[in-house]
């Protein structure tokens, strides 16, 4: 099992550009999450999904969009990149109700200049 995979590992965007951060898990987990990690701020939840076709906002959703068409994939879209979106993005998954551990991907380091 690969677990949770994320692509790309690194990306530099210009202000106003758009991109999609990919996240795939092969554990058949129903729940998936997107976090951003900023120095000294810990992890903040951007969006989450409890199953295919079901998504909801987390703490910091502004400037992002998500979709969940399959159990395996949970892409995060930045439509108009801004310097404030410079961060490290982590995707995580969890098998669902009654499960405690979240499994994290290796992260995508995004710089917006």
């Amino acid at each position: 099992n690969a677990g949770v995979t994320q692509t790309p590992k690194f990306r530099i965007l210009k202000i106003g550009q758009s991109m999609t951060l990919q996240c795939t898990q092969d554990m058949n987990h129903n729940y998936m999450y997107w976090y951003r990690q900023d120095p000294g701020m810990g992890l903040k939840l951007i969006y989450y999904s409890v199953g295919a076709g079901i998504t909801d906002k987390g703490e910091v959703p502004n400037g992002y969009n998500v979709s969940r068409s399959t159990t395996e994939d949970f892409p995060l879209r930045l439509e108009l990149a801004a310097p404030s979106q410079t961060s490290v993005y982590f995707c995580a998954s969890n098998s669902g109700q009654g499960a405690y551990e979240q499994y994290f991907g290796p992260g995508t380091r995004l710089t917006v200049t």
Partner: protein
Amino acid sequence: AQSVTQLDSQVPVFEEAPVELRCNYSSSVSVYLFWYVQYPNQGLQLLLKYLSGSTLVESINGFEAEFNKSQTSFHLRKPSVHISDTAEYFCAVRGVYGGATNKLIFGTGTLLAVQP
């Protein structure tokens, strides 16, 4: 709603010395508590968790944490650290009756820097 406070952003320690990383939480309901570890340039991994029962929980690599309900704390300890323990450690909390989301609230992290 829950919140987590990790007051120490960085803890330098010499190899083979003991260490304690502090975590305090706030919640109006019963909680589950977690410590995650992030090694350089990697994602987070679960280190240990408290769900119920014994208030002292241990990891396979010698860390332990004690749930103290009266002090709303879940401090992480290790009696003798190794260079390989250098990492960022995150405390996280979740309400026991957190609904159908299993969302975690993370602290701001503590960088454990082990020096030879």
